[in-house]
């Protein structure tokens, strides 16, 4: 068997080549943490003239590198993929107008396709290889949960998670993590109170995503809607697009009002399947799944795939929802005017919808926090600045931020979709996440957007 004695050479060749392939891919990327991180300029914010230093990983005298994981492809991409480019557009506007203490914000967001395994990979790439200063606006509950403990172990600020899960509010276990949008429990309570008051004696059905998002929402709804009114509770999983069984069950229960805690694609499926089954209850949809422009587009494209033509805008008419941001249709609102201006200049290809507004609003809040963190901030400075509380900005209610509370905005108003835009009904309501916590009208009016478009330091 003469060939056996030549075995070693090819075996080694394979291994060596494999090793080289890995090594080659790492070239040009091995940035080490900037020296400032080690020497530590402490919390000294310095005077207005103090030189800009590399005060933390990701911060240089001229730039701030931040990262994010976003569903740019895959099932959650429709609508949500607009958020990060909108944030980047607002950062571009800030950079063009002097930046944050003269530093440009460099926003690197990577696609995780809404898959937790990929989230784990891209966030490690951002933190371990790109040395980002902070993770900003990481999108999704199951996805972000995959990296929450990693980020806290690494002491990387994990600010303004794009999910309303109550799980980001754990200041003791996860001191680096902060929510931003209205959490689903508060939202469920506000939506539930409206329904209990306006549909007395009617039969209510629930349609909700079978995860933290849907369950938290239902928890809030149940705090306000008497259980005797609820005739059916139907859940769906976001990997199964056939919701006909759930809709049929809702119809059979005789529900006159359906409250839906769903993502946009499943709000559209709920609406279309209801149409098909001749079921037309009053729809109340959580903010996450009710952006009229996204919804209208999804309704039209789904109907087209099924060989039908529908008018998306007329189908969304009458949907009851809530919003913690000013209505897009309110052109007189200074925040809408500001973000429309930034959108037209830096992100004109995207439709000016709720997702774009979200991306710009959360980016504005980040700039607020960075300015509060000081001229030469460490990572801890950013966390401390948010713990000290941030002034109300683009959202209609104040933030909850404190040492003991890492929830974001605390309230919303109810509105009805009318011709593709949200018409507000009633005042801004604020509450807390406890079952007994009262729902009260907000006592603070939303401040005007700064004329410069950039928060004051």
């Amino acid at each position, binding site marked *: 068997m003469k060939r056996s004695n030549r075995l070693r050479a090819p075996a080694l060749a394979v291994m060596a080549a494999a090793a080289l392939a890995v090594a080659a891919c790492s070239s040009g990327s091995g940035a080490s943490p900037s020296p400032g991180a080690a020497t530590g300029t402490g919390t000294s914010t310095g005077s207005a003239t103090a030189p800009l230093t590399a005060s933390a990983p990701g911060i240089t005298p001229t730039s701030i590198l931040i990262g994010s994981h976003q569903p740019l492809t895959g099932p959650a991409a429709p609508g949500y993929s607009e958020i990060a480019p909108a944030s980047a557009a607002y950062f571009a506007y800030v950079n063009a107008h002097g930046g944050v203490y003269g530093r440009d914000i460099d926003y690197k967001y990577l696609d995780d396709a809404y898959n937790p395994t990929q989230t784990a*990979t891209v966030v490690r790439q951002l933190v371990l290889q790109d040395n980002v200063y902070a993770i900003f606006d990481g999108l999704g509950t199951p996805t972000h949960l995959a990296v929450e*403990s990693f980020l806290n172990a690494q002491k990387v600020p994990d600010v303004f998670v794009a999910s309303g899960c109550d799980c980001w509010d754990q200041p003791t276990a996860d001191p680096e993590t902060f929510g931003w949008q209205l959490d689903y429990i508060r939202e469920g309570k506000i939506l539930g109170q409206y329904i209990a008051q306006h549909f007395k004696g009617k039969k209510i059905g629930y349609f909700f995503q079978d995860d933290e998002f849907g369950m938290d929402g239902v928890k809030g709804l149940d705090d306000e809607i008497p259980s005797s009114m609820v005739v059916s509770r139907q859940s769906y999983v976001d990997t199964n697009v056939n919701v006909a069984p759930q809709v049929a069950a809702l119809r059979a229960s005789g529900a006159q009002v359906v409250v839906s805690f769903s993502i946009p694609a499943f709000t559209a499926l709920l609406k279309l399947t209801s149409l098909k089954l001749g079921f037309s209850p009053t729809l109340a949809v959580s903010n996450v799944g009710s952006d009229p422009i996204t919804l209208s587009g999804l309704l039209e494209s789904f109907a087209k795939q099924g060989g039908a033509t529908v008018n998306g805008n007329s189908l969304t008419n009458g949907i009851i929802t809530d919003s913690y941001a000013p209505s897009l249709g309110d052109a007189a609102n200074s925040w809408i005017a500001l973000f429309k201006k930034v959108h037209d200049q830096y992100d004109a290809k995207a439709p000016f919808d709720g997702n774009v507004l979200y991306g710009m609003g959360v980016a504005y809040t980040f700039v607020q926090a960075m300015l509060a963190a000081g001229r030469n901030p460490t990572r801890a400075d950013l966390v401390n600045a948010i713990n000290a509380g941030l002034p109300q900005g683009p959202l209609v209610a104040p933030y909850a931020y404190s040492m003991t509370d890492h929830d974001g905005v605390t309230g919303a108003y109810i509105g009805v979709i009318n011709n593709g835009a949200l018409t507000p009904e009633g005042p801004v309501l604020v509450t807390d996440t406890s079952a007994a916590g009262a729902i009260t009208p907000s006592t603070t009016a939303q401040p005007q957007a700064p004329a410069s478009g950039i928060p004051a330091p």
Partner: protein
Amino acid sequence: MTTRSTPRVLGAALVAAVLIAILSIKLNSFRDYQIAEIAIEVTAVAGLTILTGLSGQISLGNGAFMAIGAYVTALLLLHLNWPFYLVLVLAAAITAAAGAVVGVAAARLRGPYLAGATLLLGVALPSVAYAYTGFFGGDQGLDVTFTTPAFLGANFPLTRWEAWVCSAFALVTLVLLANLGRSRVGRSWRAVRDDEVAAALAGVNVAAARVLAFVVSAACAGLAGGLLAIVTGLVAPGAFTITLSIALLTAAVIGGLGTLPGAVWGSLVIVLVPTYATDVATSHGLSSSVASNIPLAAYGAVLILVMLLFPQGIQGAVRWLLGLFGISSARDWRPSDVSPVQPREKEGTQ
């Protein structure tokens, strides 16, 4: 049949271990994480390439086996807090048992029917996590805590430890599979793959051979799932979609079906091409809607190119290249003596 001595395979594994150790120390933490990812992929793909390449059965459900291994690992670590290596071995064993059940059914099915049945498994099984949210954590999944052992010191990077653990398990798997492929079991698989009637006439228990291949493949996938659980720190159904099962098969085919080095090549492609393509796309200032789809396009392009140019996968190309330089024995370093693409090719050395 040529016998290649176990010491040679062990030697190759040892060289690989040394190379990985050097790489893991030289490269940055994220590359260490990628080494761990590649090792996990290799473990799963090696099992699949044995199943499909040697025993001739296709599986579109190995992602589900990974899910079983991952959930077993998470649950055992969560509730019993046993040492991780023990948990991983148990995860492989329990998944192997699941593989036996599937294998018994699969042994009766052929071709597209087998593909369909395993596809069903790949699609349906992760949904069980939604049905018992209290136990499996639903969409949110289960947390897995994994830390560096005390003897390495407090400052030892976790990702390097993960790279070591995953690579060690992957190498042990490869050595075991290489031996198995050359053994009586491996020969019976090839016999069954090439001609069931002839194999049965020669005294091979066809059904047992087919079931055993499923068991081995499932054990590898279960181990890979367990490793994935400890490395990502979370086990959630969103990680085990049908895309994962298809990616495993893609890696096996790109690398070269039925060959263990092919499993390594395929895993390198699957893990590194998307990251590399993302880096290229984002560094060239493309609009985000274009840039985000480049990795998918690159993945597709690599798949098409490899299949057009090297129908026997990257390992086929490597063999061809080595052949050019007169190293004809290149084809020895694989458990398969007969390529599945040309099932009737006979070796003259019997």
